[in-house]
C-alpha cells in the first residue's frame, strides 16, 4: 500500500523527480519486510487451522545427562484453548497445556498440577510461549521476540527468534522454527545450555475435537 501511494505521488511530479521517487519507492518496498510486521512471509505460508493433530518426537539435551532424553507420542492443538501432549514412549503420560495451567496425568490416575496461572507468572509466561510456538502464532511471538526469516522453495521457511526482554533472555537464548504449511521442527536453546528439539509429523486438521478430548481441557 505504501508503494502504491508513493508511486501515485511520483506520477504527479516532473520527470527527474519521478525517477527519484520511483527509486525510493522500489527501495522502500524491498525493505518492506523489515519495517512491516515481522515474519510476513512465514505468516503467509502457514495454514491457519483451528485444530491440528499429529505425532511428535521430542529430544532433550540436558546438562548432567550423557544421553539425550527422547520421547514420542501424539499431540492435539486447539486454537484459543490449548494443547494436549500425549506421550507414549518411553513413558505414557498426558500433559494438558492451557494459558493458565499445566496439568500432568499419569495412567495410574495420578494428576499433578505443575503450575497454576496466578501462582507463578514466570512459568505462566513459558507456558504461553510454548503454546504460541506450537500453534505458529506469529503475532504473539512478535511481541516477545525479534525475528529473522528465511523463505525457501516450495513454500518452506525457517525463522530465527531472539528474545527482546531481558527477563526472557535470562531463560532462553534463541528459538528456531522451520516448516511449510505447518510448523514442522522446533529447536529451543536455553541459557543454561539445555536444548530441546521437537519434530512434528503426520499433521492433519481432522477429525475434529471429540467430546472426551474437549472435556480434558
Amino acid at each position: 500500500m505504501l508503494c502504491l501511494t508513493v508511486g501515485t505521488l511520483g506520477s504527479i511530479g516532473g520527470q527527474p523527480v519521478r525517477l527519484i521517487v520511483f527509486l525510493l519507492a522500489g527501495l522502500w518496498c524491498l525493505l518492506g519486510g523489515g519495517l512491516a510486521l515481522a515474519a510476513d512471509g512465514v505468516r503467509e505460508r502457514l495454514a491457519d487451522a483451528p485444530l491440528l493433530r499429529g505425532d511428535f518426537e521430542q529430544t532433550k539435551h540436558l546438562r548432567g545427562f550423557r544421553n539425550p532424553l527422547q520421547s514420542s507420542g501424539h499431540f492435539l492443538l486447539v486454537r484459543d484453548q490449548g494443547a494436549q501432549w500425549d506421550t507414549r514412549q518411553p513413558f505414557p503420560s498426558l500433559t494438558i497445556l492451557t494459558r493458565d495451567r499445566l496439568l500432568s496425568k499419569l495412567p495410574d490416575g495420578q494428576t499433578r498440577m505443575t503450575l497454576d496461572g496466578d501462582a507463578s507468572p514466570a512459568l505462566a509466561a513459558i507456558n504461553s510461549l510454548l503454546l504460541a510456538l506450537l500453534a505458529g502464532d506469529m503475532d504473539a511471538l512478535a511481541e516477545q521476540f525479534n525475528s529473522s526469516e528465511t523463505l525457501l522453495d516450495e513454500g518452506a521457511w525457517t525463522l530465527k527468534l531472539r528474545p527482546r526482554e531481558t527477563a526472557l533472555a535470562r531463560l532462553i537464548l534463541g528459538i528456531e522454527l522451520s516448516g511449510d504449511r505447518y510448523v514442522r521442527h522446533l529447536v529451543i536453546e536455553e541459557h543454561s545450555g539445555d536444548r530441546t528439539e521437537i519434530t512434528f509429523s503426520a499433521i492433519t486438521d481432522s477429525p475434529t475435537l471429540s467430546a472426551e478430548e474437549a472435556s480434558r481441557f
Partner: protein
Amino acid sequence: MSTTDSAPRVPTPALAWLWLLIVLGLAIQQIDFWRHPRIDNDVMALLPGASDDPVGGSAFARIADLTTGQVVILLGHPQWEKARAAAETLQQHLSNANAPLAPSVDDLASLDQSLALYAPHRRGLLTAQQRHWLQSQSADALAASAIARLYAPGPSAGLASWQDDPLGLWPDWWQARLGQRMRLRDGLIALHDGATHWALLRFNSTLPPFQLNGQSPIDEALDLASAQARQVAGDALQILRAGVPLHAEAAAARASWEVNTIGLGSLAAVLLLCWVAFRSVRPILLIALSLLIGSATGVAVTALVFGHVHLLTLVFGASLVGVAEDYGIHWFASRQAQPRQCVQGLLRQLLPGLMLALLTSVIAYLALGLAPFPGLRQMAVFSASGLCAAFLTVVLWFPWVDRRPIAPTSLAHRLAHSLARWPRWRFDQLGGGILGLALLGFVIPGLPRLQSNDSLRALQSSAPALLQQEQAVGRLLGLPSPAQFFIVTGADAEQVREREETLTDHLRTLAAEAGFDGYRAVSDWLPSTARQQSDQSLALRAETASLQHLGALLDEPLATPSEQAPLTLDAWLQHPASETLRPLWLGEAHGKWASVVLLQGLSARSDLASLAELGNQLPGVRWVDRSAQISSLLGHYRQRIGALLCLGYVAVAVALWWRLRAHFWRALLPTVIAALVSLASLGWLGEPLHLFNVMAQILLLGIGIDYGIFLVEHRDDPASWLAVTLGAASTLLAFGLLALSATPALHAFGLTLLIGITVVWALSPCFRPPAVPSPLPPRLLDSIPPQRDTHAH
C-alpha cells in the same frame, strides 16, 4: 473574719532562699530536658506491663517490635502496568536524600539471601501437602510422576535442575512460604485481590522517633509523592498507607496542638481574668511565674521518677494551669480586700484554707495512681508535684515579692459582693423545692442510661480514616493480629518446635471454622529436627527411586542424592534472612523456652473461644488475648476505684466534720450533687462509662470540695468568694479545653469536670452557713460607702 483557731508559723526567709535554689536547679534541668526531650509516644506504654504475666508481656513487646518504624504503602489499579508505574513514580519521589522515608529492603536481594540459608537443607523442608503426598504414594508412582515432569514438552524452568529436585518440591515449598497472595513481579511484591492488582512498597522512617513540633513530615512527603503517582496512573489508582510511624506522627501533631491550645488557652484565660479583676501587671506576672514553676516541676519530677514523659501526660498536665492558679488568686484577692493587713498576717489567715485545699487536691490527683496504669501514675505524679510547687511558690515568695497593695477594681467588687445576693437554698421555700425536684428529675432517669465500656479505644486518638486504611492493609496483606496469639512453651528448643508443629497441624484444620486465614510460626520455616529428619527420609526415598528409574531408562548411571544435615536453631537465628521472624522466638527465660504463634486474618467474627479451647487442650500451649485482658483489667479497676470513691466521700466527710464541725455538710453536699449531675449528663449524652470517668470523679471531689471549704472557712468573705469565682472560671476553661481532646479518656476527664465544677460553683454559695449577725442594722450597712473604692489606682 476567719475561723482559724491557731496561728500557724509563717515561713521564714531562709525557706524562700531555699526555694529559689531549688527553682534554679529546676530551670537548669528543664533547659537540658527540652533540648533532648525524652517524650514517649507509645499508647502501649500507658498500659500495665508484665508484672502479672511476664511471658505474655514480653511476647507482646516483641511482637510490637515486628513492625515499628515500618511504613507500608499499597498502590492498586485494575491494570498491573499502571500500578507498577505508579509504584515506581512514588518510589522515585521518595528517594532523595532528605526524604523522611527510606526503602526498607531490597526484596530480590533478600530472596537470594534466604535461598542461600535454606537451600542446603532443602530435603528436610516439606509442606504438609507434600508430606501427605510422599507418604501416600509408593516410590514407583512418585518416580513416574517425576519422570513425567522431566519429559514434559518445552523448555524447563525452575529453581533447581531436575537432578537436584526430581519431584519439584522446592518451588512449591517457597510458594507456600510466600503465601497464596503475594509474589514477586517486575521487581516488586505484587498482590491480586480479585479486581485490583496491588504493588507493595515498604519504607523505614529515617526521622528520630519523636518530634513535638506539630509537623507531619512523613504525611506531607507521602501526599506529594502520591499526587505524582496519581498523575501517572489516573484516577482509578487507590493508595493505602499503614504503619506505626504514621499513627505516631498524627498523634504527636494532634497532641502538640492540644498541649498548645489547652496550655496557652488556659494561661491566657487566667491572665485575662487576673487583669480584669486586679488591673495590675504584678498579679499577672507573679501568677504566671507560679504556674510556670508548677508546670516545670511536673515535667521534671515525672521525668525523674519514670525516665520519660508520655505525650498524654503532657496534654493532661496542660490543664493543671487551671487548678494551680487557685493559690495565687486567693493571695491577690485577699490582698485586694485587705490592703492594710500586713503580709504575714494575711498569710496566717490564708494558710489553713490553702493547705487544706492543696491537701485535698493532691490526694485526689494521687488517687489517680491507684490503678496500676503507668499512664495514670504519670498524670498523678505530674499534677501532684506541679500543684505543690505552685503552692510553695505562692506561700514562700509572694509575701516577700508582693509589697505594694493591689487597688480594688469595680469588677472585683461586684463579683465579691455578689455572694451576699446569692440565694440560699431553703428547702422549705418553693424555689428550693422546684430546684430540688428538677435536679432529681434530671439525675434519676439519667443514671441508668450510663453504659460501661472498658475498651482500649479510650486511649486511642487516631483519626478514623487512618485506622480504616490500617485495617484494609492488614486484610490485604494477611498481617497477623498483634493482640491475640498463642504462646508455646517447652523444656528445650526442640520441644517448643515440636509442640508448635502439633498446634499448627490443628490450626490448619481449624482455619475455616474459626474464621482466620493462616498463621505465622517459627516452626513453619525452621521445623523441629525430628521433623526435618523424617521429611528428609521421605524425600530421599522418592528421589532415589526417581533417579534409579530414569537411570534405567536412559541406560546411564545417575548419582544418588546424599543426606543433608538439618537446619539448626543457631544458624537460623544468626542469618539475616530470619530477621522478620526472630521476634517470635522468645528464647529461654526461667528455665523454659517459649515462642509465639501469630494468627492472620482474625476479625470480630472469629471464634476466639475455640482457639482458647485449643490452647487448653494441647500441652505447653496457651492462648493469650491481650486486648481482652486489658479490657477486663480496666473494668476491674473501674469497679474497685468506684468503690474507693464512695469510701473517699466518707473519708472527706469525716475530715470536714473534724475541721468544720456542724457545717461540714455544707461543704460536701454541693460536690455530691455535682457528681450525680455530671454522671447523669454523661448518661443523657450517651457517653460510655469507663475507668477514666471514675478517675475524673475523684478529681471532681478533690477540686470541688475546695470551694465549699473556702466558703465555710471564710464565712461571708467577699474576697474569698472572688477568689473562688476566678478560680472556678479558670478551672472551667482549662478543663473545657481538655474536653476538646481527640483522646476519649481525656475528653471524658474534661467533660466530667466541666459539668461538675459548674454545678459545684453554682451550688456552693447556696449552702453557705447563715450570715453572722451584724452589730449594725442592715439599712445602715448599705448606706456606708465602701472605703476601698476611694483609693486611686
